């Protein structure tokens, strides 16, 4: 893969996907990189109207020095596919409730029931799921359990019982299960807040942004808005959370392409860890994101990055999920190229004990990979998910963003392209813009 040059936050940047070096460059180097001529003299010839020859030679020499030092790769090449140890199951999404007290219009779960019966997971099934996790986790110590749904607070007594059961399993088997819960906030009360803060290492609070944006897509069962109910509860949860992680997380749709305003609204309301995700759906629906929306979306990310940089100078604690890139202690190359792990090391379990590759596939009968009674009974499907990685997907192999994006969302690929091996192109475009801005933010902060 060739070097990727781009502009972000008024800076010119270069990322080498082979060596993973990241550089801030000036206009001279940037313009040299746009020249397709391989011969240095031809590049100088092409640019000598813009820059004097000595400047061009100096810049070329600096590039060559970096190549000689191994910081930049000498030629286009693809990463060799990495041999990986056999994956184990190390993360569960536990659907403790296939029911919900909201009727969000975009719900991937068909307003909570996943196109099936509304039901709650029994404690017995939940414990079997946790046993299944521990039994299939091999030597991995750090495991994850996300309480999910539908709305998990509707089955909170089971959430509590399973959390305590999981903590006992930790001691017995020398594991470290990290519990997370995602909630729409409607049923939050002081008891639930106390338990969540004591036992959950992360909480995801679902709120879409400004009141009119949120209430449009997230009405109650009576078709009333839910913003006024849940915002104060989320603030209370946040205020008592201490140093533990939490995210306020919105979904943006074709109705709020200016989602940067919703992210800023979260910061204005006192939330410091914020995430905003595009809706996952098929393009025929009215609220779906279309290809024509991408330009507006990219502009929203750019506006957001610019404002975020300013605000972060005043409050370094601010985090926006898609601008977070750890350049010093991030994941290893093998992890970066593996993908989200859905269907391989991460699975979803429904109230009746069926096992699916992830929450987005729940309800799609052809994607059942097993159940808690028999265990995994569709190893061929697991192998399919395992093969859907950046080394095997044609579009990913030549993509500069492969080590940041890790191949994109399998559900998006399936629902839009009916092929796990074909990433969803709109998703790719958004990912690239996010990576560029994340790197631009790092550069702006490092070099100011």
């Amino acid at each position, binding site marked *: 893969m060739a070097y990727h040059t781009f502009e972000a936050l008024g800076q010119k940047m270069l990322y080498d996907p082979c*060596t*993973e*070096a*990241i*550089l*801030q*460059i000036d206009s*001279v180097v940037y313009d040299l990189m746009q020249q397709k001529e391989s011969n240095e003299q031809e590049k100088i010839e092409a640019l000598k109207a813009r820059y004097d020859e000595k400047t061009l030679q*100096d*810049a070329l020499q*600096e590039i060559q*020095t*970096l190549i000689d030092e191994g*910081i930049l790769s000498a030629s286009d090449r693809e990463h060799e596919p*990495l041999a*990986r*140890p056999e994956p*184990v199951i*190390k993360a569960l999404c536990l659907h403790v409730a296939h029911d919900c007290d909201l009727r969000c219009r975009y719900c991937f779960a068909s307003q909570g029931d996943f196109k099936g019966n509304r039901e709650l997971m029994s404690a017995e099934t939940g414990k079997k799921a946790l046993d299944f996790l521990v039994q299939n986790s091999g030597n991995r*110590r*750090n495991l*994850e359990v*996300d309480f*999910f749904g539908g709305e998990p607070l509707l089955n909170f007594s089971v959430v509590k019982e399973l959390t305590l059961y999981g903590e006992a399993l930790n001691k017995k088997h020398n594991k470290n299960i990290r519990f997370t819960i*995602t909630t729409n906030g409607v049923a939050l009360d002081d008891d639930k807040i106390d338990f969540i803060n004591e036992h959950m290492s*992360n909480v*995801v609070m*679902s709120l879409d942004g400004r009141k009119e944006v949120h209430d449009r897509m997230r009405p109650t069962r009576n078709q009333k808005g839910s913003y006024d109910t849940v915002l104060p509860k989320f603030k209370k949860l946040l205020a008592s959370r201490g140093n533990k992680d939490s995210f306020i*997380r919105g979904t943006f749709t074709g109705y709020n392409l200016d989602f940067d305003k919703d992210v800023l609204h979260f910061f204005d309301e006192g939330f410091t860890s914020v*995430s905003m*995700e*595009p809706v*996952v759906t098929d393009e025929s629906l009215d609220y779906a994101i279309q290809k024509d929306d991408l330009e507006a979306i990219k502009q929203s990310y750019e506006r957001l990055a610019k404002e975020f940089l300013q605000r972060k100078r005043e409050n370094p604690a601010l985090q926006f*999920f*898609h601008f*977070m890139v750890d350049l010093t*202690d*991030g*994941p*290893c*190359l093998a*992890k*970066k190229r593996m*993908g*989200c*792990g859905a269907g391989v090391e*991460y699975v979803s379990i429904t109230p009746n004990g069926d096992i699916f590759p992830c*929450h*987005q596939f729940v309800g799609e009968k052809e994607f059942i990979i097993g159940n808690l009674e028999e265990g995994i009974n569709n190893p061929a499907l697991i192998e399919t998910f395992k093969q859907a990685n950046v080394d095997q997907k044609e579009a990913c192999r030549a993509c500069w963003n492969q080590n*940041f*994006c*890790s*191949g994109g*969302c399998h*559900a998006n690929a399936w629902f839009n392209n009916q092929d796990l091996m074909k990433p969803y192109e709109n998703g790719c475009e958004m990912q690239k813009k996010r990576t560029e801005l*994340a*790197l631009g933010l*790092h*550069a702006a902060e*490092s070099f100011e």
Partner: protein
Amino acid sequence: MKHIRILKKPAIRDTKAHDACGECQTSCQSACKTSCTVGNQKCENDR
């Protein structure tokens, strides 16, 4: 260097010793697996 500033050098730690131990977080956050920005996770290998 006059024309280039290095923000990040190639990772030295991408060696077999740190290859896919699997102890890092699997999913970014519950319900945000739709955008599995792996790049924002931390290595949790106890070196």
